[in-house]
């Protein structure tokens, strides 16, 4: 029996020479080793020192010298085996002083020096032999009650003996991993790293809906400085992570929009006098657009806007690849005076400052955002390639920026549109002249809807390139300080608005403000109340973003001397559309109160 085991051992060793040889020896006594693997794992996890392992094993060895006991804890039994087999194959307590537990190379060294000896000794020594074989009985009993641990341990044994998974099947398994596990998988070996980084793999992962939403919170201000930190929340696990983005240091009041795997950071301003501080006494406004790819933790730039804007209202939307190029929209601009259907949009506004030398000078200055970037080496650039779009599946999109605050602190009414294929910004028609200041906007079904502070709704038909004023049923006016926010989910248009809620009629009952979710019927243009947000509206700058069937919201405010954040989510595909809270374990207590004002939110599926 031992001879057949010996030939087995030699055969396996030849076939699988790079394996941990200790595991090979273990396989020979496979029936007797229940629990050991889980012990190995446990010990590794706890980083128990070798000395401790040895001392415990010595104690247990003494315990078992008197013969097997039915009452052995599993671990006690396993420990004994561990001593005998796990340490270079000798029935020697405290063998292999040089061993680092779990270090394959040293194991190999020690076991090869005792080739053939290890198991022989074990079976040879009567006492240990008896223990080993009688152990099998206990093991079977234990096995029934601890299926899961046993399964893993046995699976490790058996895996030594069989063919490895072919790459295509392995790929199919890896594609199902959530992001954090995928990142870990990339560290396993070169093949796994390769398999999980090909564009095809990422495409399958995207299309197979194996991704989960991640929220990205921007605008963290710490100790008065725009720290350039991005806080990312893995919604499925409720875990926060921090990304340091030096490139964003000092930049605030930018707007963000997400598309495919990237986040677009548009405009914003930086203080000129005290770099990094949220200081608008002397500042410069940016035209630049940065793109962040969390999956590769890389940054790049796309074309800058024509006008520097802070807090522009953004709308982003995929378009078909045969979408008319925006060059042709230039011609439409000229025809705008003759448009009468929009009733008053005839645009006679001309920029009185267009000839201003100062403005021209500032524009030239704005072109070179790059020169203000503190440290080029601290982030990666991917060179803009024309075939980059091909690797992402040719998914063309447009990004619209409307309004915002200009270089002179003036509210802007101009708008521009970015085409991902041509990498150019083109001016679009200005919002209707009496529309008011745009406070929120979102794209829904090919229309960029915007809402003004004076409760007007308008829509920009992206394909046709003009604004339409939209008349809806009356809407309860919002509390003045709380501008409503538009969000879009699965082709539906919603708005979050804070309004006064009547007290329940009783005299002396104070009215309170409540945030409600409304939906606009796009056919009949009627607003319907969908649900009430559970939290009292404390944050006038609460950020909401729609993603597929979910609406995520973040409120941040300082209360009782601390900055707190509250994240909520609502599933609009659900009839009830109730809001639930997600993760409050966040580092906002480290942030300044001004983060409340500078924060912005984007969501990606990763």
């Amino acid at each position, binding site marked *: 029996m031992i001879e057949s085991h010996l030939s087995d051992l030699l055969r396996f060793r030849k076939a699988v020479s790079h394996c941990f040889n200790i595991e090979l020896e273990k396989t020979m006594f496979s029936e007797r080793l229940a629990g050991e693997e889980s012990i190995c794992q446990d010990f590794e996890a706890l980083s128990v020192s070798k000395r401790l392992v040895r001392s415990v094993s010595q104690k247990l060895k003494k315990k078992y010298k008197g013969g097997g006991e039915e009452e052995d804890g599993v671990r006690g039994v396993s420990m004994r085996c561990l001593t005998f087999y796990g340490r270079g194959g000798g029935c020697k307590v405290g063998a292999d002083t040089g061993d680092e537990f779990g270090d394959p190379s040293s194991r190999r060294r020690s076991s090869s020096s005792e080739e053939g000896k290890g198991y022989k000794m074990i079976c040879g020594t009567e006492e240990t032999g008896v223990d080993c074989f009688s152990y099998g009985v206990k093991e079977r009993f234990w096995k029934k009650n601890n299926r899961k641990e046993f399964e893993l341990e046995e699976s490790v044994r058996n895996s030594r003996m069989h063919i490895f998974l072919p790459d295509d099947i392995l790929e199919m398994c890896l594609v199902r991993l959530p992001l954090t596990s995928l990142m870990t998988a990339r560290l396993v*070996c070169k093949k796994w790293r390769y398999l999980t980084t090909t564009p095809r793999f990422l495409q399958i992962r995207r299309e197979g809906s194996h991704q989960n939403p991640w929220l990205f919170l921007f605008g963290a201000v710490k100790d008065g400085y725009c720290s350039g930190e991005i806080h990312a929340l893995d919604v499925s696990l409720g875990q926060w992570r921090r990304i340091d983005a030096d490139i964003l240091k000092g930049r605030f009041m930018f707007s963000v929009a997400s598309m495919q795997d990237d986040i677009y950071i548009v405009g914003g301003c930086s203080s000129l006098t005290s770099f990094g501080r949220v200081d608008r006494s002397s500042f410069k406004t940016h035209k630049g657009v940065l793109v962040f790819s969390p999956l590769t933790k890389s940054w790049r730039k796309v074309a800058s806007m024509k006008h520097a804007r802070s807090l522009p209202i953004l709308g982003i939307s995929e378009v078909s690849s045969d979408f008319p190029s925006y060059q042709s929209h230039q011609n439409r601009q000229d025809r705008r005076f003759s448009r009468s259907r929009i009733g008053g949009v005839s645009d006679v506004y001309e920029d009185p400052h267009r000839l201003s030398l100062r403005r021209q000078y500032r524009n030239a200055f704005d072109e070179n955002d790059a020169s203000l970037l503190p440290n080029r080496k601290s982030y990666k650039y991917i060179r803009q390639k024309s075939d980059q779009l091909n690797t992402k599946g040719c998914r063309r999109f447009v990004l619209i920026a409307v309004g915002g605050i200009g270089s002179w602190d003036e509210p802007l009414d101009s708008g521009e549109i970015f085409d991902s294929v041509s990498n150019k910004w083109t001016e679009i028609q200005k919002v209707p002249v009496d529309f008011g200041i745009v406070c929120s906007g979102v794209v829904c079904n090919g229309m960029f809807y915007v809402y003004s502070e004076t409760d007007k709704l308008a829509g920009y038909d992206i394909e046709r390139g003009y604004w339409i004023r939209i008349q809806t049923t009356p809407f309860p006016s919002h509390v003045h300080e709380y501008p409503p926010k538009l969000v879009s989910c699965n082709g539906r248009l919603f708005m979050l608005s804070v309004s006064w809620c009547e007290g329940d009629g009783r005299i002396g009952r104070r009215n309170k403000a409540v945030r409600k979710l409304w939906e606009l019927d796009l056919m009949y243009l009627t607003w319907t109340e969908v649900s009430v947000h559970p939290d009292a509206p404390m944050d006038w700058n609460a950020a909401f973003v729609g993603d597929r069937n979910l609406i995520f919201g973040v409120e941040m405010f300082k209360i009782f001397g601390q900055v707190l954040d509250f994240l909520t989510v609502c599933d609009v595909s659900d009839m009830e559309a109730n809001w639930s809270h997600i993760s409050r374990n966040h580092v906002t207590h480290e942030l300044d109160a001004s983060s409340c004002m500078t924060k912005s939110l984007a969501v990606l599926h990763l």
Partner: protein
Amino acid sequence: MSSSKSNKIVKLESSDNKTFEVEEAVAVQSETLKNMVDDGCANDTIPLPNVNGKILEMVLGWCKKHVDETVTGDELNKYEADFLDLDQADLYGLLMAANFLNVKGLLDRVLQRVADMIKGKKPEEIRRIFNIKNDFTPEEEEEIRLENAWAFD
């Protein structure tokens, strides 16, 4: 006869020469076998040289359960959960068989099961389970860690 199809038996032979007879309705859960049946190649025993008897029995058991109308949703869920309580060798065998035979539901389940074995584990643990040698240098490992440091556990 309209019911002739439901009486049709498909004969399968595993790599270790075990034969199995199943109703056509059960067999066509496998897209591969369905194609053969549709093409008229399923009249004789179909040899399956890359699936052994033990695994083939499991696969056919799964297919039978899913065709059986008397099984309730809950029972099916429990069955599926218990079904995958296998050791790694069997799991791999099942995975490859489900892939070859193209039994979509089963394949999806087993793939998810293997993915679950990877989820939440450290690289060293994953290497041990899948018997993989670490071919990164410490510098390379460090570089990869830094690349996506924010997304690691």
